[in-house]
């Protein structure tokens, strides 16, 4: 029920903060009342006809990069990391 779907803003908001978004090719009008900083071209998470957050695409790309590089490390390195090093390399946004 709390599902939110990524959509791209494809029109400027009107006077009551409604804008057109593209959800996988389907166009809909959603309210930007909750995302005052959202701009034309941004991706937003849409829930029940409202944009609830601007998607941080840069962050998404970085966390993928981090996840992609994990497991390439040597097992000993990981073991050492777990054995009490306080630096949790690669843990995003904690």
């Amino acid at each position, binding site marked *: 029920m709390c599902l939110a779907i990524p959509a791209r803003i494809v029109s400027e908001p009107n006077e009551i903060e409604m804008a057109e978004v593209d959800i996988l090719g389907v166009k809909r009008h959603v309210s930007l009342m909750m995302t005052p900083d959202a701009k034309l071209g941004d991706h937003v998470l849409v829930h029940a006809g409202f944009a609830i957050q601007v998607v941080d695409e840069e962050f998404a790309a970085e966390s993928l990069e981090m996840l992609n590089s994990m497991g390439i490390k040597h097992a000993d390195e990981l073991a050492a990391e777990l054995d009490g090093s306080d630096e949790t390399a690669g843990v995003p946004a*904690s």
Partner: protein
Amino acid sequence: MNDILAGFRDPEVARRLVDEIHRIAVEPCTLMEVCGTHTMAIAKHGLRGVMPETIKLLSGPGCPVCVTANPDIDLAIEIARQPGVVLTTFGDMMKVPGSYSSLSTEKSEGRDIRIVYSPLDSLAIAEREPDKHVVFLGVGFETTAPTVALTIREAARRKLPNWSALSLHKTVPGALEALVVDPEVRVTGFILPGHVSTIIGTGPYEFLAREYGVPGVITGFEPVDVLQGVWMLAKQLAEGRAEIEIAYGRGVHAEGNPSAVAAIDASFERCDAEWRGIGVIPGTGLALRPEFAEYDARTRVPVAVPEPREIKGCQCGDVLRGVVLPFDCKLFGRACTPEHPVGPCMVSSEGSCAAYYRYTDYGKE
């Protein structure tokens, strides 16, 4: 955007995460998710099957439809029965049984009950049909509550005389506390809901780590997201830490969405709420503020509600607390199936029982 999402479905990345989880999860632990979308994601992608034996994944009270108590559903049904009322709500609510009926049954018997995609759609109905009184039945956690809060504000701005909201909204953190202090429930870590946290951020969960030593990781919904959440929890447990972390940074900021939180607080005030299976949890409900009384269906459409009753043999309450698994219920798969559901956890598309029925080879677990 789609390229990015594809990355979070990459089997190779998932495999590496699974390997890492197996390596670090030495001590037995029970991780609970409290979001219907996680319930479905875990079941659909078979993630229970790839966990080490040390990790038990449980579903908690994460489906807002499932945790709605019978007296509240009965109230919505009585309101829908009043002459001149149009009851509008999300499709999820239609088939959920109350004590004696469901909205779906009522609709088939001629009540004017309509499914809307957005609460704003119900304002449009009220404007188009001035002779009717349009009630919006609001159900959902913090993800949904601000959309209804802003719709109430919009109704007031437009001075709509024939629209009101019935708020059955609930807030998540207080329910997590009720689970942590419940001696029957043993949770070592929480897979925290992604989009509830988009709104509230990490702050409202901090007490779990600080006061109870239970870690939590806010988690997204792609297979790699869920595995990353589990991995971060396993890592915290292995390192003896209890913190609230975010594994879904593309959709959640630590501070949440302050505009949305402000919207909730402007239209609603905290009240006690009854959760199916858990009982009344103080301060976890959202009631319309007195200044919006004329938009509150509880005052606008006063009704008498019959004495509630529970469904015989149904263990949804225990399933919602994670005390029994769906297939431990005597009705599961026999008297209660998605085609002929008895309890809300089988009715709702995001219910634990529906997820287990649809995706799990439950003889094996």
